[in-house]
């Protein structure tokens, strides 16, 4: 069966520190992968998506970057966090029906 893992689940980081969130998928190959962010009390914003290794599309200019070093690994990074980067980060992969299957999420608080 297909599963998706995200870590860390929760982190608190100071402004200006780096960030690395990791997402891995099991039980499927060459998945379309996505990073969404949900700010407090708001909807979901698509940050990045990837259709294959090394292929990253950015949706919103911002302080973040993404990489896909392996087929089933998707990483979200920042060199210097801002307060506005706080939020709930969700990784997802696209199923054949088109729906997204989400990971458990990573909650980031920037202080």
């Amino acid at each position, binding site marked *: 069966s297909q599963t998706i893992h995200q870590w860390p689940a929760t982190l608190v980081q100071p402004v200006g520190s780096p960030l690395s969130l990791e997402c891995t998928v099991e039980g499927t190959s060459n998945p*379309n992968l*996505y990073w*969404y962010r949900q700010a407090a009390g*708001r*909807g*979901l914003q*698509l940050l990045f*998506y990837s*259709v294959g290794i090394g292929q990253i*599309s950015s*949706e919103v200019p911002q302080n973040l970057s993404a990489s896909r070093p392996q087929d089933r690994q998707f990483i979200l990074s920042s060199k210097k966090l801002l307060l506005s980067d706080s939020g709930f980060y*969700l990784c997802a992969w*696209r199923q054949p*029906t*088109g*729906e*997204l*299957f*989400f*990971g*458990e*999420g990573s909650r980031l608080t920037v202080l």
Partner: protein
Amino acid sequence: ELKVEQNPLFLSMQEGKNYTIYCNYSTTSDRLYWYRQDPGKSLESLFVLLSNGAVKQEGRLMASLDTKARLSTLHITAAVHDLSATYFCAVEKSNYKLTFGKGTLLTVNP
């Protein structure tokens, strides 16, 4: 740019009552999805609607899609407390990207 609007954004219901959440979108699309999010949790897929006139039902929830009107509805029948959550609709654009509505926070009161 695709816009997805849900209403209401906040809904307080009594147990046993019926209600409908609406999802309007701005450009042509034949794929619409409904998700549920419990507080502090990730999103769980509820329904996938892939064509005009599609209707899906699961328990007390029923979703429908009218692509000509660019409208989907999520109907709640005889609400129970366990249905309290935030419900999102999402519409697929080109390149397999989903645009989400802002969500409807549903509270079912005894």
